[in-house]
């Protein structure tokens, strides 16, 4: 069972995140860049499958040089090797363009399964599994809270608000996972040391047979025209209890669609 896990480096969602005013793309230089949290669950699931069934886990990332930190984290958790697509021309690419890059990279790899987090904490588009499934002609099983791989078939429980859907597809397939699926392991110190010796191959657009003009901000299908900071927190709502406080409270929560 050879598994490719798609990993994205994102600005830490716990810190203040900014866009670069020069071209309205994510400001990475000043940010605390970390592995997308949701991807850690995909890595954990891939490692669990590998530990039970054998095979290799390969990490694939598209990103600038600094994305090697995200790769190292995945390798220190236990992934076997990595492919890093890095090319200045990719800067500012939209999801559609990025999916072309990832699809081209996957086209040069052998795998039974592609796994990724159900969303990235930066753009939160959650479209990559669908875009890749379309480009590669593979089934997609998205938003999994449980994965079972048996005899050439992937079965997942697709998490929904009210419960789950039972989905099934033949391999190879693309599976995205939510944070309900497992508890990602910490790297061990030995894992960190071992990660330094694991192979990381870099690929340029030319290596993938892609034209630099087909990606990047200039030809992106979506573009950030303007942005504004989050408005400051409001004053909140004060309810005076005249014997009907509980009712007013519930009415408010209902009005906000919380209950």
């Amino acid at each position, binding site marked *: 069972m050879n598994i490719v896990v798609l990993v994205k480096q994102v600005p830490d969602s716990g810190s203040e995140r900014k866009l670069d005013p020069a071209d309205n793309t994510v400001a990475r230089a000043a940010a605390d860049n970390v592995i997308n949290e949701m991807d850690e669950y995909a890595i954990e699931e891939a490692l669990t499958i590998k530990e039970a069934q054998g095979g290799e886990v390969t990490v694939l990332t598209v990103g600038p040089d600094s994305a090697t930190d995200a790769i190292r984290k995945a390798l220190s958790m236990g992934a076997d090797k990595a492919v890093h697509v890095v090319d200045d021309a990719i800067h500012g690419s939209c999801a559609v363009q990025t999916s072309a890059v990832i699809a081209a990279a996957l086209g040069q790899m052998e795998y039974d399964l592609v796994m990724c987090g159900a969303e990235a904490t930066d753009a939160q588009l959650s479209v990559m599994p669908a875009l890749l499934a379309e480009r590669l002609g593979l089934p997609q099983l998205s938003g999994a809270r449980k994965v079972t791989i048996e005899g050439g078939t992937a079965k997942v429980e697709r998490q929904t608000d009210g419960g789950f859907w039972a989905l099934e597809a033949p391999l190879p397939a693309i599976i995205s996972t939510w944070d309900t699926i497992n508890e990602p392991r*910490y790297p*061990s*110190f030995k*894992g*960190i040391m071992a990660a330094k010796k694991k192979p990381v191959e870099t690929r340029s657009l030319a290596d993938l047979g892609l034209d630099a003009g087909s990606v990047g901000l200039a030809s992106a299908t979506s573009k950030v025209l303007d942005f504004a900071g989050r408005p400051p927190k409001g004053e909140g709502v004060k309810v005076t209890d005249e014997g009907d406080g509980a009712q007013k409270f519930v009415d408010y929560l209902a009005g906000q669609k919380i209950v």
Partner: protein
Amino acid sequence: MPVDRELPSREAEDLLALTREIADAELAPKAAEHERAERFPREVFRLLGDAGLMGLPFPEEIGGGGQPYAVYLQVLEELAARWATVALGISVHTLACSPVANFGTEAQRRDLLPEMVGGTLLGAYSLSEAHAGSDVAAMRASATPSDDGWLARGEKAWVTHGGHADFYSTFLRTPVDGDRAISCFHLTPDLPGFSAAKPEEKMGLTGSTTAAIRLDDVPVPADRLVGEPGRGMAIALGALDSGRLGVSAVAVGLAQSALDVAVAYAVERSAFGRPIAEHQGVAFLLADMAAAVESARATYLVAARRKDAGKPFSRQASIAKLVATDAAMKVTTDAVQVLGGAGYTRDHPAERYMREAKVMQIFEGTNQIQRMVIGRHLTSEVVPPAG
């Protein structure tokens, strides 16, 4: 704010980053509750073992992390800043592994060490007795030769992890090798006649269990003797110098945490129209606390670097233990002062830190003993003036 450290390698930086990640997520949120409930966090040690943090200063060939003491101690400090009980536990565990690691036979090192330094098994160090703390030579618990090994009897006291540990590096009088002779044994709680007493009810570090160990005619197999018979005193005292460095780092971590709590509070809390940190009376208090923390850190690092360089470090280890634990007592006491009435309540960690600091001036040799050690070094190192 994480402490900005000068580390010798990228590897050490990664190790410290891993330590902070695990300590923030797994130690800090549990400390107050466990300490209040006096509950020993055995599962936390399993987690740290899996992460490879239970055998850092031991060579890689025997399953350790191959780290210099200067790096290992800074890991301890980071752990202590989140939960002193756990950091102390690692220091004690390291101490407990050292006799087999340094003096064990080839078979002992091969059969016992991987699970010890790998952290699957938790260690305890059993040297003191009720009437024989720093006066090690006064110990009475003994092991006498039997047909197929030894028969151990007596009572050891103040054993950290007593009742929870999987192995006990235990020092016993072995009269056969001379009246004063002491030997080291690797004891396990499955041996018949081995039992732990009811844990002590302590002022602080209440999550860390301390208990006496009773040995009622415990049959000890011959292959549990560690090192030469009669060599126990040298094994024990050599390990203590390293143990003092461990305690120094734990004390600095605790003091750093108290300083952080005090500064955060002093910036938030206002009086007379401005944050109390801007009143000179408080600012000077905070400044003295920071000076105590940073000088204590520098002192244990000096001693650790001497050890790593293979130089004698006994005097420096005693100085580090004295300086760091006195600093921790002062800084935690002052942290309570900065928080005022709030600091005296259990809503804030300052009072707990203060209770935890006190024992650090006592264990691994009281600070009075440290002064004796330092004094002896000074007088024995004097070179008479020429002529």
